[in-house]
């Protein structure tokens, strides 16, 4: 009996470790996270009713540096009451992350996922990874790796209210 319990725990541990990346149609996790600056906390649930482009990043990640200007530009063009980019800084030092946000002039909201639990819930395998979440809280697009201007224009923009189709 004890052996079975131990084996069961091991299997459960292995199964829960290997969570797979969330796919379009899945409900996006809504755990509350601390804001990178300001001391408050927010959840994706606070953005219900808006399209949200959730971007997992870290200051030590070169591809994140490469894609940030395109995300900021997209936010400048489309950010508002019906859409926002939402950055989630994961497994990173908060001071480094704040420096990164200032250096790149990032204006979209930023949350902190220091221990990487939220990134795990989304099933990410690294940074950057980006998920487009619709106003009902369901994932519409999942992008492992970098997004660029072309992807945002061709894949994301047509889905947004008022976007070209």
């Amino acid at each position, binding site marked *: 009996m004890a052996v079975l319990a131990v084996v069961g725990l091991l299997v459960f541990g292995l199964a829960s470790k290997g969570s797979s990346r969330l796919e379009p149609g899945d409900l996006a996790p809504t755990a509350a996270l601390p804001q990178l600056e300001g001391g408050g906390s927010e959840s994706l649930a606070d953005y219900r009713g808006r399209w949200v482009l959730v971007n997992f990043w*870290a*200051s*030590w*990640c*070169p591809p994140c540096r490469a894609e940030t200007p395109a995300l900021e530009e997209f936010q400048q063009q489309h950010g508002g009451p019906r859409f926002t980019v939402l950055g989630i800084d994961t*497994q*990173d*030092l*908060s001071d*480094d992350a704040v420096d990164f946000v200032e250096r790149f002039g990032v204006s979209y909201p930023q949350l902190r996922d*220091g*221990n*990487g*639990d939220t990134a795990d819930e989304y099933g990410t395998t690294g940074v950057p990874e980006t998920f487009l979440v619709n106003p009902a809280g369901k994932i519409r697009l999942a992008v492992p790796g970098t997004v660029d201007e072309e992807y945002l224009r061709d894949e994301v923009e047509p889905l947004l209210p008022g976007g070209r189709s």
Partner: protein
Amino acid sequence: MSWRSLLVVVLALTLVAPAAAAEQRASLAEIEKEVMCPVCGTLLQLAESPQAQREKAFVKRLIAEGRTEAQIKDALVAEYGDEVLALPPDSGFSLSAYVVPIVAFLIAAVALALGAWRWRRAGGTKDDGTPGAKGPSGEDAERLDADLARYDL
């Protein structure tokens, strides 16, 4: 207080204070053996990833600020969560990581002792309380006697 007592106290303070300070002083080499690189899933000591480099720089900065090892570990936990510690903290639920093996060992030891005691007891007496068999009987005993007789010199 005599001048001799005073001298002893001064000498003791001279020797003990620097030793205590040295014990408190943190070093990167010691800390990186006890914390993880969360992204790599290995000890920080073994990691060379960009995240690990930033973590090491963070530890060096805190050492330069004069923080103790415990304070630096607390700062790392504040940044990365409990998972950054190579050994779980000895409080709260994490305490079970230390307690469970000890309790399991004690239970196993008691179970073994109890089993040995019952086995010896069963071997010494029968279930009805009469003394147990001391050796082979019946057909086995006859065959044993015959075998021993054949080798009798």
